């Protein structure tokens, strides 16, 4: 373009900025409470555990926080693309040469920074409150209130199954996971070969199983229920089939289940290695 086209400012005397801001505020004021009340609580993992419930609350807060952002862009583009498009087939004309606006920039930076700092602070608070069901490694930093008396379970991952050991039941090992209801549970996750990840979906628990490392995760169970256990880290050929179902049982039921399991596995118990936080994997182990 060698000739400078004429400049056109579509509707120059209309205060577009005010229209967009008002529409945005109205839309946000309507949608945000609706999202917070009706959408937020539906987001998984649900209330299978205190930690899962904490995650739902986190998701609720974050969805409420991002709703105004979505509204802003929706309003902006809906308004802007309708209002500011060139006429089809018309001569090329230029828009006004706006190059910057310090006020808008500062406002934008201040608002985004405030939101980010709030999110980071909020997330940290929620994380440190009870560990949020995430694996914390061998030396955890976030505990539920009653963690000294927590019920201990060990999850041993290997290609391609989970086995579970109960140190308080004499190191009993079984391939079914059962947890007592309304109890603080301290889960020790480790692996015998490659990296796996123990994911108890409805409890909101996930912790990587690393060979030679004791990855501790806390979960406070609530009422009795079933939950799915899946491996969430690619661990080789049958990764997709590495799942089973766990149960949260009433304490009485749990103990009768445990007694039954002990009886079933009594004959092989003497072949098990003694209970330990990690089990040394064979260094040159190779699966085909």
């Amino acid at each position, binding site marked *: 373009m060698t000739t400078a086209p004429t400049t056109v400012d579509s509707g120059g005397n209309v205060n577009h900025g005010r229209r967009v801001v008002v529409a945005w505020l109205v839309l946000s004021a309507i949608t945000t409470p609706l999202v917070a009340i009706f959408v937020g609580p539906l987001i998984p993992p649900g209330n299978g555990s205190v930690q899962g419930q904490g*995650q739902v609350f986190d998701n609720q807060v974050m969805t409420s926080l991002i709703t105004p952002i979505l509204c802003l862009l929706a309003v902006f583009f809906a308004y802007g693309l309708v209002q500011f498009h060139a006429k089809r087939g018309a001569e090329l004309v230029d828009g006004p040469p706006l190059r910057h606006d310090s006020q808008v920039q500062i406002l934008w930076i201040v608002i985004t920074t405030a939101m980010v700092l709030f999110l980071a602070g909020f997330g940290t608070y929620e994380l440190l409150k009870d560990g949020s069901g995430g694996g914390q490694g061998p030396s955890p930093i976030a505990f539920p209130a009653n963690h000294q008396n927590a019920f201990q379970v060990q999850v041993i991952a290997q290609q391609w199954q989970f086995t579970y050991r109960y140190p308080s039941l004499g190191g009993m090992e079984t391939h079914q996971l059962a947890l007592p209801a309304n109890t603080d549970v301290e889960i020790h996750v480790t692996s015998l070969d490659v990296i796996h990840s123990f994911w108890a979906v409805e409890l909101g628990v996930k912790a990587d199983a690393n060979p030679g490392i*004791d990855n501790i995760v806390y979960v406070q169970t609530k009422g009795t229920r079933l939950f799915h256990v899946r491996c969430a880290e690619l661990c080789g050929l049958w990764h997709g089939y590495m799942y089973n179902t766990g149960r949260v049982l009433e304490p009485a039921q749990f103990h009768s289940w445990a007694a039954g399991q002990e009886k079933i596995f009594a004959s092989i118990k003497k072949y098990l290695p003694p209970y330990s936080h990690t089990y040394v994997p064979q260094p040159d182990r190779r699966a085909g």
Partner: protein
Amino acid sequence: MTDAAVAPMPPVWRRLIGFNMLTGVVLGVGGWYVGWFGAHAIVGPSLDYFGDIDYNELSVFMAYLGGVVGFLIGLGFLNYPLQRLRGYPPSLREKETEGFGRYFSLCTDHKVVGIQYLWGVGLFFFIAGLNAMLIRSELLSPSHEIFPAGTYLTIVGVHGTMMMGIMTSGILGPFANYLVPIMIGTRRMAFPRIESFTFWLLMAAATILQTTVFFGGFPTGWTGYAPLSNESNPGMDCYILFFALVGISMCLLGVNMIATILTMRAPGLTWTRLPIFIWGILSTAVLNVLAAPVLIAALSMEALDRTAQTTFYVPGGGGSNYLYENLFWIFGHPEVYILAIPGFGVVLELLPVFARKPLWGYRLAVSGMLGVSLLSWFVWQHHLFVSGMNGDLRPFYMLSTELISIPTGFTFLCGMMTLWRGQIRFTVPMLFCLAWFFNFLIGGLSGVFLSDTPSDVTTHGSFFSMAHFHYTIMGGLVFTFFAAIYYWAPKMFGYELNETLGKIHFWLMFIFFNSTFGPLFAVGFLGQPRRVVTYPSGLQFLNDWVSISAFILGFSMLIFLYNLFWSLVFVKKPAAANPWGSKSIEFQLPSPVPVHNFDRIPVFSGDPYGYGGGAGPVTVPAGAPAGRD
């Protein structure tokens, strides 16, 4: 550069002989066998070379390294160093002529390399996309298996690895190589031979990754986590070689870009007059140079673990799988911004043209890109929130990850304010840029859930995170990749693309991209981990919905290909020099750009965004007495 007396054209068979791709392939195959037999001589005198691949990893590595060296020698990369050793004078020009053969050889014309990159990257992008179709076919049913589990994992791995490896050069390769010298007013890149080297190395690497199927594939996905990688088939070696060679290619590409942009700008092209696209390339190139060596180091140790029985990543032998995870993500997180930032550059470069307004907030946009590339170094352990590593550092990584949304927000603000009160034209490239806003917004906002450690406990490693990064990378990079193709193809090839087909392509791609990846957020929250071959039957409806959408998404790519071939091979409608009315310098040159770009080096007197009479003409392109020759 045409000679006055044109020599008569030799016959076809004679033209095929010489240093070109054909010779490269022949010597590559030869080198492969030299490496193979050589390694057997080291490891053991076995010639039973297809029988012992299960335990002779060294021969796989040596074979492919021999193959790559032979391929590069065949292309002629040794000629110039040898000539210099024999006392010939230095030269920067090789095959800078007209003709089709230069696209299949070492060519130091940056425009040829750009076009080579476009077809090369496009080819492997298409192959990786076909793998995605296979993945979605398998996931049509929760239990019925189209592919055996091992084959399925290989398909998943090749899709991810190929996309992540090849598309790092998706914009840097074709468009930066083609446009950076033109936009900064020079005739070549700083290191023209290295420029060609990065391309041919990338092609060799991508071919190696494809051959993984002959060695049993690999089960690790694109992350290649140890110790799973230690116990895998020799197909794993193809993964290691691919990513290490891609790392070398990326690193050299970055060096080349930085050197060119720093040292070869034309007179008057100050830092604040640089097109924003160049800033995007520069931010990315810095990441390329710093991140790729970490990957190469990590994979070298993995290669040693597999060949020389070292135990860098073997827990029982004093090593640690955390070491690999750390090194991989120190590379891997900047890597995703290597994919995203060029997209920012393309969007911000195109918006002023189609809104006919100057780029709003130039300095803010620049600081946004530089800020993202700086912060991308401090976030890598957010991939490891539940790994049990550094539990006490999780709040820090949560903060640093969320901080990245501030400079990313600058790009949004600058883009949106550039549209504000503009004269927007809904051309095909513009539609792809506008789609970027939507996609990257969804990608970014879903990232909020992943960066928040409590919420990440559920979303980590699930289809939620998979949907998230497809929104940012496919929505952020691939959409801008197509925007760049539609925008610059008339300049690069000299022919127009069909606009109607372009719009059909866009709408199909945009709608079914969202229809594919949107439901996957829900699938992830409902408990489907990534890379599984089977899933709960309750999720079948959503998975089928996603698969069918994905097939239509794949079909939209066929429309694009049809458009490309139809327009460039059959219709051949010559493009105007400046079809978009752009003020950027490449559109002041003829289409296609002549071999040496400028008769005289231009002098810049402003940035390329002087719409609305805010500034005078950008450049004095030709015949200016002030310019250098």
